[in-house]
Each structure stands twice: as C-alpha cells, then as structure tokens.
C-alpha cells in the first residue's frame, strides 16, 4: 500500500500474474461485441427520438402499466423464490435422504426447459379447466390469464437462481459457529434465525437480484399463461414485440430503453448493498 501511494494513482495495481494487458483487452472486446454494441444501438435509437417524443411515448398509460406489471410481478416472484429457494437449499445441504440427488438435479430443470414449454405446462395446470385451476375456480381464485399467472411463471424460471447462489455458501457455514451459539445457550431456532440466516444475507441478495433480473426479461413462459390483456396482464417485453409488429419502432425503443434504465438502477443498488455488507462482514475477503 505504501509503495503504490508513493507513485500516486495507478491504473494497474502491481501484480505477479502476467498477461494483464491481453486478458483485459480480450475481455473488453468481448464485452463490447456481446453487450455494449447492442445496448448502445438501443441508446442511440432512443436518443434520436428527442426528449419530448421519448417522454410522451414513455408516459403512455399502456406502457406504464406494462412496465408496472413486469417489474411488480418479477419482484413478487423473486421474493417468493427467496423464501422457498433458501428452504430448498437448506433441505438439500443439511439433510441426507433418498432421492436428494434427484431433487438437486431437478432444481436446474427451469434452466434447461424451453420457457415456452414451461408456460404451456403451467397454463394447462392453472387454466380454469386444468388440474389445479379446476379446484381453485370454485373458490373464486383465478391464476391463469391474470397477473398471478405471470408471478407463477416467473417463480418457476427464477427458482434455480436463488438455490444455486445460496447453496454453496450454506455448505461453507462453519459448524463451530453453530456450536458456539449452542454453548451460549441458543436453541436451534435462535441459531438459525440469528446466526445462520443473517450470515446468508449477501448470497440471498445475489440470488434475489438474479431472479429479479431474469423475471423482468422473461418472455417465453409468460405470454402463454398471462392472457396478455392490455392494462391487466400485459408485460413490457410483449408490448415491445407488439409495437415492433406495428412497425412502431420509436415506441418499442422507448420501452426497451426504460426497462434497461430501471433494471440497471435496481441491479446497481443491489450490488452496492452487497459490496457494503461484504466490506462490513468480511465475506469473500
């Protein structure tokens, strides 16, 4: 530390690992090609709209509603996934039972399954004449073709993100920390709620962020179960497609740019919270 401060600010911290220039060059070119060029195309298109047009397009009630549905449902689904994802990870890490490996493998299925298939399967189940929907209909509960259907589909696609980020951290929990809590008089419930879960918070946040991001962008599974009624169950990605089919490119671009900004802001906030908790608790240090 003292050495570098003598020389003032440096772009590159001295390191024994060679190939910094090459590695950074390849990384940046790749990132540019895959992420930056498409996104800057979007920014360029929407900036050519002019502020006035952009704002009037963005403030369109149908757009606002679609964005609200997209982010709201993704948020709810991510919350549900946090609760059940942590529980699922806990069961997989802490208990040994026949079929554990099969359940462990099943967690990844939403990654692999074409989302349209998931959407159709869920619709068949939850439609008013489906296996589950038929039992819910007499109770006055409708899931398919309502925003609840969207939440359902997003829970499905987001689950593995929470489980897979929390699981490895849970496996690393030091048994001695639990024993220390027990010697101090803590019962199991206190140990779990006061020691183990708070320790998992950064991983849970990461899982939440990933599930949320995935949910916001999800298209394939949602359009089958949502019913896609404007102002009721229409998601923003679908509205973009609709605008494209109408050759209304400025509107499509505006919605996309808005989604991008909101998503980026949310992920940035979550990342900042994580960085803060890492610094404070020394995780990953």
């Amino acid at each position, binding site marked *: 530390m003292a050495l570098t401060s003598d020389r003032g600010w440096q772009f590159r911290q001295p390191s024994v690992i060679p190939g910094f220039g090459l590695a950074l060059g390849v990384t940046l070119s790749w990132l540019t090609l895959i992420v930056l060029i498409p996104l800057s195309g979007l920014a360029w298109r929407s900036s050519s709209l002019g502020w006035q047009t952009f704002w009037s397009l963005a403030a369109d009630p149908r757009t606002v509603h679609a964005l609200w549905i997209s982010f709201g449902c993704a948020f709810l689904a991510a919350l549900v996934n946090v609760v059940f994802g942590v529980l699922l990870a806990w069961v997989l890490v802490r208990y040994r039972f026949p079929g554990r490996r099969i359940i462990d493998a099943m967690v990844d299925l939403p990654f692999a399954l074409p989302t349209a298939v998931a959407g159709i399967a869920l619709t068949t189940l939850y439609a008013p004449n489906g296996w589950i929907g038929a039992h819910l209909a007499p109770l006055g509960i409708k899931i398919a073709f309502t925003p609840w259907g969207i939440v359902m589909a997003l829970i499905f696609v987001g689950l593995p993100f929470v489980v897979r980020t929390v699981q490895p951290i849970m496996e690393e929990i030091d048994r001695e920390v639990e024993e220390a809590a*027990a010697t101090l*008089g803590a019962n199991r419930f206190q140990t779990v709620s006061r020691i183990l879960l708070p320790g998992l918070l950064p991983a849970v946040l990461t899982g939440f962020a990933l599930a949320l991001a995935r949910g916001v962008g999800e298209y394939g599974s949602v359009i089958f179960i949502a019913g896609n009624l404007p102002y009721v169950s229409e998601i923003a990605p679908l509205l973009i497609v609709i605008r494209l089919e109408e050759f209304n490119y400025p509107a499509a671009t505006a919605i996309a740019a808005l989604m991008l900004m909101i998503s980026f802001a949310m992920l940035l906030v979550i990342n900042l919270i994580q960085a803060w908790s890492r610094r404070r*608790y020394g995780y990953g240090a």
Partner: protein
Amino acid sequence: MDVRVKDIRKEFSHLPALENLSLNIRSGELIALLGPSGSGKTTLLRLIAGLESPTRGTIYFGEDDASSKTVQERNIGFVFQHYALFRHMTVLDNVAFGLTIRPAARRPAKAEIRRRALDLLDLVQLSGLEKRYPAQLSGGQRQRVALARAMAVEPNVLLLDEPFGALDAQVRKELRRWLREIHDRTGHTTVFVTHDQDEALELADRVVVMSKGRIEQVGTPDEIYDEPNSPFVYGFIGQSNCLPIRVEAGQIWLEDRLIGLSAPGEADGPAKLFFRPHDIELVDGCGGCLAGIVVQSRRVAGTRHVEVELGAARTRVEIELPPQRAASDGNRIAFRPTRFKLFRD
C-alpha cells in the same frame, strides 16, 4: 464449580477415542489437557461441554449429573481454536449474544446487558472496539472477543480448545500471560486443550498428559517435568534421552560396561534408562561412567548442545553443557547422569 469425569468411554463409529477415563477438576483451577494429536484431549473437552455425548460414563458439575443435560443447559463457556465469532455482528453484539437470547424471565435489562458486555471488553482490553466487526480485528483480538463472549454467560466452567493454536508465536506468548491474569482475577474453573507443552507447563495449575485416549499422568507442571511416571511422558515433555541397559545385582550396565549408577532393589534384567540432557555431570577419566565420541555440537542461546555416540551400538544421546566448555567433534567425552529413571518394557 468443580467438574468430575467418571469412567468415561467415547467411541466414534466403534473406534474408541477415550477409554475409561476419570478426572477430577477442582473449582477455580486452571487445568491443561496436553497430548499429541489423536490423544483424545479435544474429545474430552467436547464431552465436558456437551457437544458430544459419551458412549458410557458420567460427568458431574458439582453434585449434579450433567451427562443428560444438553449443551445449552450446562451453561459453559467454550472458546474455539478458530474463534467462531458471529461475523455479521459487532464485537459488542457478539459478547452480548449469550445474554440477549435468554428467555425474558432470566434476561437482564438492555442497559444492563450493554454494561456487562462493555465491562467484559474492558477486562479483555478491547475497550473502544465494540463497534467493530470481527473481520476488522486481528487474530489475537478476535480470540479475546471470543473469550469475553464465553465469559458473558457466567459459565460454570470455561473450556478452551487450543485457544492460541491459530496465532503467531509472539501473540501466543502475550495472550498466555494475559489469560493467566484473567483467570487469577475472575477465578473461573478453566480447562484448556493444547499440544504445546510450554503453554501447558507455563500456564496451568495442573497438567493432564494424554495419549491414545488415556490419561498418562496428572500433576503440577513441576511433577510432570521432574517425575514423569511413564516413558511416554518422559519422551513427550521436554528433552530426554533413552538408553537400553541391563540391571545386574543393583548395578546398571550399558553393554559390557558399568556406568557408575546403581539401582538398589531393582530386579535383574533389561530396562530403559531415561535422563534429561541437563541432568548430567562431566567426569574425568572413566571408571564407571558413560563415555562416547562427540558427533555434533551446537550452541543454542545460553547452552551448548552436544550429541554423543555411546558404546558399540552407537546409541546417540544429547547432553547440555555450559557454552564455555569446548567440545569439538571426534573428541571423547565422559559423563554421568545425576537424575535418571528406569522403566521396564
């Protein structure tokens, strides 16, 4: 509170880790469990804590049978080698944890908990660091937080599992002295596990030497060092030499020579002679002594360590001489142990 361990046996998947072991720990005593790894010392500590349950036998806390009590009910303080602090809590919250989780009926008021935690931090010389997180402390500071946390619940007995094992030599030495001070001030009955004999001999009122799941010897540091009661303790504690000898008519023979030591009352036959490198006197000429060739001589701080090959079997022993005494390689040297002990196989 005194702790009695009675006829304890502990098996891990049918392999015995402790065999029929009994030990009385007096109230207010600072006692060390010393042994090589695998000797069962940590298992014994965890059994007292209730983190393991014995296969057979009983553990008494005072007059109460604690064997069937859970670890939570035993009210002990446990310090782990790797601190095991709660890293998402501040130092103050760590220390206060044991008090804050008590059921409402036995929980002190918030301000009282805070006061007691701060007092303890003062005792372990960490005042002013109460708002830090464990990640922001050095190893020695973390272990002191762990000790304060363990003492906060006013434990019946304080159990420390290699408390200084993860620290570097300088900090270890400092904490050793400091732990002794804390013990003298608070008077907690304290049991600590260590594989470091200096630590055990310097710190403890009594030392329990363990090997292979058994207690080899229990005694004050002086007794353990001066009167080892088995070849294992002789070899494990301090430096020692072992010579295969023969006893004939109360006289000790090494190969075909009398070495000038007598063992009155000792039955004839082969035995092992143990003596410490510093318990010797040099003799001139040799009518009954140990004589051999110097093969190596090293100066270590205030003494000269000399390795000598004895007899036809060229058994190597090490002796300690004053540094001014020159002993160059290849020279002949003669000496006689002033203190020694015989063990039969």
